[in-house]
């Protein structure tokens, strides 16, 4: 008999196949359940630990309360005593007595160096307090969509802006932070600090309440450990070394007091030290340098959020959503939102569709999307569309090479020519036609939302006649035979370098070439790959080039970009602009530690830029964010956004 593969056999095989698959899936399900169970157990353990800690602390407080009370009383008595003494001594003019342990308001300053005033800064707090709102509630999951993969979230080992937003703003904290509204430095981990009038050192006192998310107090040893970790050459932390190397050394004076010494005297030293992210020693010291270098998700800090699961052998890695949960042990005021989820959608259309589907609460928009969505009433009913200029939104510019290119001075060596070029460009039109009208015309290199910017300066207007007049003055005269401008027999020609990847700069370049033709200048456009931009700048081999800068702090040191010493020495003064007046202002400004005095100097410097136009400052481009109306208390600040303030209103949950 012939054995034939019949219908019965087929059904049998299918059944066996299905059975196998089901078994495999059931096993997977079991595994997952087990994983979840162990995660819950872990959570439970940490809860129990916290509880016992609290119980211990309660037991201690009984005695400590008495001590603290008597301490306060004693301090108060001393203050009164001091005031009485001072009243008596006021005639003889004694101001600061050596070795004082408390100041006039009864605060402990025994840790400070004598004779130098101690600053008790305002502490960081919510600008728009959510806790007062009638529909305030806690909980909910806030989902934010990023547009590119972020490979690492280990502090000091990450390399992109997403790392910064997760690590430095949510999970870890610094000694101080910029106030979102006023951009002043306010205290975060530090409750007080003391700055040397000569700018050589700084002392900071850490808030005794500050705790890492596992309950261990933040101490000066952690600060020192952080510094040593960054400067250990076995660690791949180069990116941070170049900003932190103004700090010469960090010394732990006592458990809560830390002293920084600086290499040079410069106003920016203090903010560099204060904005250094502090990481826990007891956690990070258990890893070898090679482990830290490879780590993708070893993230722990003292901030309001923490990683949902921190497991060194099974870390978060790129490609998965990153989930942060609220740090229930947080030592400060806990933010309302319970969980933060960060996901990545690279495609522009997909990101917006996903957001509109309600699968995300916040995303970064591009200007075309902003324009089309703000006219869509449906979209606006469900979402906020915010666009604002803040500290971090950059500015675009055209840099004119004021020195030599290919061994010959460019036409832009003459300030009058640079001014003429600025008058040649109708920046209002560029803003309207090429940038969807978002942003405004820039007047200088300082963030318009920050204190360095001189608000009295208005942009140079679009003025063809002024431009022609300036070019004539500079000796570039129109030759009647062909209509071009010549000086010493040389035609006014220049090469305008742009990046291949940006359509905006291409539009602007074509516009600029047209405008140049109107006044008799030949402008040819050169497109280069972004990868060789840095090389072109270092070699100073361009006539004019366009780029975009952005800043990460309200105040930055102009030396690197604008001082004539930065033309050589591998500096970033790639336009080779040298102005004795600017040099003098920069040198004076860097030494001036007083804020108001220094701002006056920067404002004056801003005027020099306006006069000399080493760059034609084009547009300040705003941040664009779409935020779902499911979230309340959404405010835009000069610093950006403050996610910690936002909450899901009560009736939503």
């Amino acid at each position, binding site marked *: 008999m012939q054995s034939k593969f019949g219908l019965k056999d087929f059904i049998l095989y299918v059944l066996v196949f299905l059975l196998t698959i089901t078994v495999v899936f059931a096993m997977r*399900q079991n595994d997952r359940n087990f994983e979840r169970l162990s995660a819950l157990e872990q959570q439970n353990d940490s809860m129990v630990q916290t509880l016992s800690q609290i119980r211990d602390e309660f037991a201690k407080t009984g005695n400590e309360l008495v001590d603290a009370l008597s301490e306060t009383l004693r301090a108060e008595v001393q203050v009164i005593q001091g005031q009485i003494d001072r009243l008596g001594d006021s005639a003889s003019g004694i101001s600061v007595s050596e070795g004082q342990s408390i100041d006039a308001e009864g605060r402990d300053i025994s840790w400070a160096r004598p004779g130098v005033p101690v600053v008790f800064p305002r502490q960081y707090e919510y600008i728009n307090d959510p806790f007062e709102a009638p529909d305030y509630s806690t909980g909910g999951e806030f989902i934010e969509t990023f547009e590119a993969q972020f490979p690492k979230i280990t502090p000091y080992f990450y390399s992109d802006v997403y790392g910064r937003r997760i690590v430095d703003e949510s999970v870890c904290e610094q000694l101080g932070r910029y106030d979102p509204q006023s951009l002043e430095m306010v205290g975060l981990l530090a409750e007080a600090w003391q700055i040397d009038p000569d700018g050589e050192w700084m002392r900071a006192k850490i808030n005794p309440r500050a705790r890492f998310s596992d309950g261990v107090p933040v101490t000066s040893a952690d600060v020192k450990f952080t510094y040593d970790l960054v400067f250990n050459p076995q660690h791949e932390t180069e990116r941070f070394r170049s900003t932190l190397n103004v700090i010469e050394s960090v010394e732990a004076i006592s458990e809560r007091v830390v002293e920084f010494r600086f290499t040079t005297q410069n106003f920016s030293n203090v903010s560099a030290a204060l904005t250094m992210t502090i990481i826990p020693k007891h956690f990070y010291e258990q890893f070898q340098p090679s482990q830290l270098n490879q780590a993708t998700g070893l993230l722990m800090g003292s901030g309001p959020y923490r990683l949902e699961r921190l497991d060194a052998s099974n870390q978060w890695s790129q490609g998965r959503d990153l989930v942060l949960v609220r740090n229930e042990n947080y030592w400060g005021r806990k933010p309302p939102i319970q969980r933060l989820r960060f996901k990545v959608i690279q495609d522009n259309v997909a*990101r917006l569709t996903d957001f509109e589907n309600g699968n995300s609460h916040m995303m970064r928009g591009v200007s075309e999307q902003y324009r089309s969505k703000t006219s869509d009433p449906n979209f606006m009913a469900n979402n906020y569309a915010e666009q604002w200029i803040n500290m971090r939104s950059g500015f675009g510019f055209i840099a004119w090479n004021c020195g030599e290119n290919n*061994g010959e001075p460019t036409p832009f060596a003459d300030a009058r020519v640079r001014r003429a070029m600025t008058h040649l460009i109708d920046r209002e039109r560029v803003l309207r036609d090429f940038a969807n009208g978002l942003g405004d015309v820039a007047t200088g290199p300082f963030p318009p939302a920050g204190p360095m910017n001189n608000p009295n300066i208005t942009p140079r207007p679009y003025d063809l006649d002024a431009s022609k007049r300036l070019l004539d003055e500079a000796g570039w005269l129109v030759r009647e035979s062909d209509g071009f401008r010549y000086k010493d027999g040389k035609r006014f020609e220049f090469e305008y370098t742009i990046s291949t990847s940006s359509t905006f700069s291409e539009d602007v370049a074509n516009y600029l070439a047209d405008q140049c033709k109107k006044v008799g200048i030949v402008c040819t456009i050169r497109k280069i790959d972004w990868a060789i931009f840095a090389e072109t700048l270092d070699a100073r081999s361009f006539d004019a080039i366009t780029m975009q800068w952005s800043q990460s702090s309200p105040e930055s040191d102009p030396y690197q970009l604008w001082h004539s010493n930065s033309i*050589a020495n591998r*500096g970033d003064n790639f336009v080779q602009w040298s102005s004795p007046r600017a040099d003098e202002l920069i040198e004076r400004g860097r030494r001036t530690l007083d804020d108001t005095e220094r701002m006056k100097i920067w404002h004056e410097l801003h005027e020099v830029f306006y006069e000399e136009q080493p760059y034609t400052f084009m547009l300040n481009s705003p941040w664009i964010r779409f935020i779902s109306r499911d979230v309340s208390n959404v405010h835009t600040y000069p610093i950006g956004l403050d996610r910690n303030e936002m909450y899901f209103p009560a009736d939503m949950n």
Partner: protein
Amino acid sequence: MTTYILRRLLLMIPTLLGITFLLFMLVANAPGGIGASLALGGGEGADAGQNRAIQQAYLEERYGLNDPTLVQYFRWLARVSPLKFGEPLQRDDVGEVIASPKPLEAPPFFGEYYGEGTQLPEQIRPSRVSTGPTQIEDEERLQRVAAYRRALNDYTNARGAFIGAVERLKIALENYAIAEELGRSDEIIKNNKLNMARFRGHNFNADSELGRAVVQAGEAAIVAMRNAVESRNRLAEAFAERPFPDSVFRVGPVPLGVPGIVYLAPPDLGKSFSKSQPVSSLIADALPITLLLNCIAFPIIYIVAVPSGLLAATHRGSWFDTLSGALYVALWSIPVVWAGVLAVGYLANKKYLGDLAFPTAGLASSGAEDMLYLPSLGPDGFERGALLDQLWHLCLPVACLVYTGFAILSKQTRAAMLDNFNADYVRTAKAKGVAHNDIVFRHVFRNSLLPLITMFASIFPAMLAGSVVVERIFSIPGMGSLVLEAINARDRDLLLANALMVGAVNLLALLLADILYALADPRITFD
């Protein structure tokens, strides 16, 4: 047959070398060069430029980017090759390869410029051949590891100082050269490097201010180098003590190879410098995702295309033949980029499809990690579970991967079937009165399978390479996305590892196709 396979396998080695060499040179000669992605931003203040240059030099030294391109290529080859020569490398507990410290390069312009007559200490080679026991006592090993780590710490510090000193010297030389007008500034610094040729034949002027700065920087560099060489020698000694296990393939306890001369070891694919993670772990993360996508997509292509090609052949000229042919070719001609974006814009938009809308991106919903794995009937009705959730996410990407594939395969099947229908043996079978179905399936179809087998072999490598476009549109972190990121960042090691892998799989698949050919068709032999 065996000799044929062996010959083909041996021929693969030069082919792979050629592929990687070509790619390496392409990357090296692209504008910006290999290290383009390492360019650092940031830094403020007077010394920021200098500091950045130092950090840059440090990074270049770490990844060996300051060596000539050919040297870099051979070094990469030596790391990747499973066949290694000389003293075995070691591997620490994290899996990081521990190599002996590289010799340090002397600072430029010794002698005439500064430090005349000084001798630098000799740099030793760790030369102890390990013939000793492979398993050292735990305690002793830990002591050696600790000694090695201490030496490494000293050395990295000293080397960092040395690199900084050399960089400062170079900047001093650069300033000096510009002041002495040895050339234009862009001639003196070429590709971010000091162009030493410009100094040739120049009489050093040590009395000028910048000349004195050069002398000072040079002497500092010598001191730093002496320190660095001393601690390097100590590290080399610690390395020769073999604190870590050798990185060698073993059969049981016996290492494969002759100790100290030649041995087999696991290849080291290196480290991605844009992500500073080992390349192998990046690929291990991305590959399963791409395989998952393709393991679903390719069976679908075959299940749809082969039967419809078969049907089209048996009903040649019918409406089904014309219609399916037209449809597949039409689908084939739609670009995936366009279709993908449309699919996201419409099929994934709740405005059009309501709750039935497909997911826009990724492979799992937010919160899928808290779902049960299998679908279940919970208290809130039907719950989809992580498994169905993932399948739901796979729908659109798989559709985009699949729709262009029908045309070629179904046309191929149809053509092969028609060829065989006209063959003599079919006529004979018909004359003998064999049933029509038996003719189609047992004779014609079987003989038409040949081209389908070989086609699979050529499709298989594409499964590993991943579809760049589809993965990009749907934000799927598979091999395609990884390659794209590597190209954008000029990530040398990641790119080369990818090329090596895809190249090897391609060659293997071609070999497999040839072997299958011989197996399926007895007329073909390779002897």
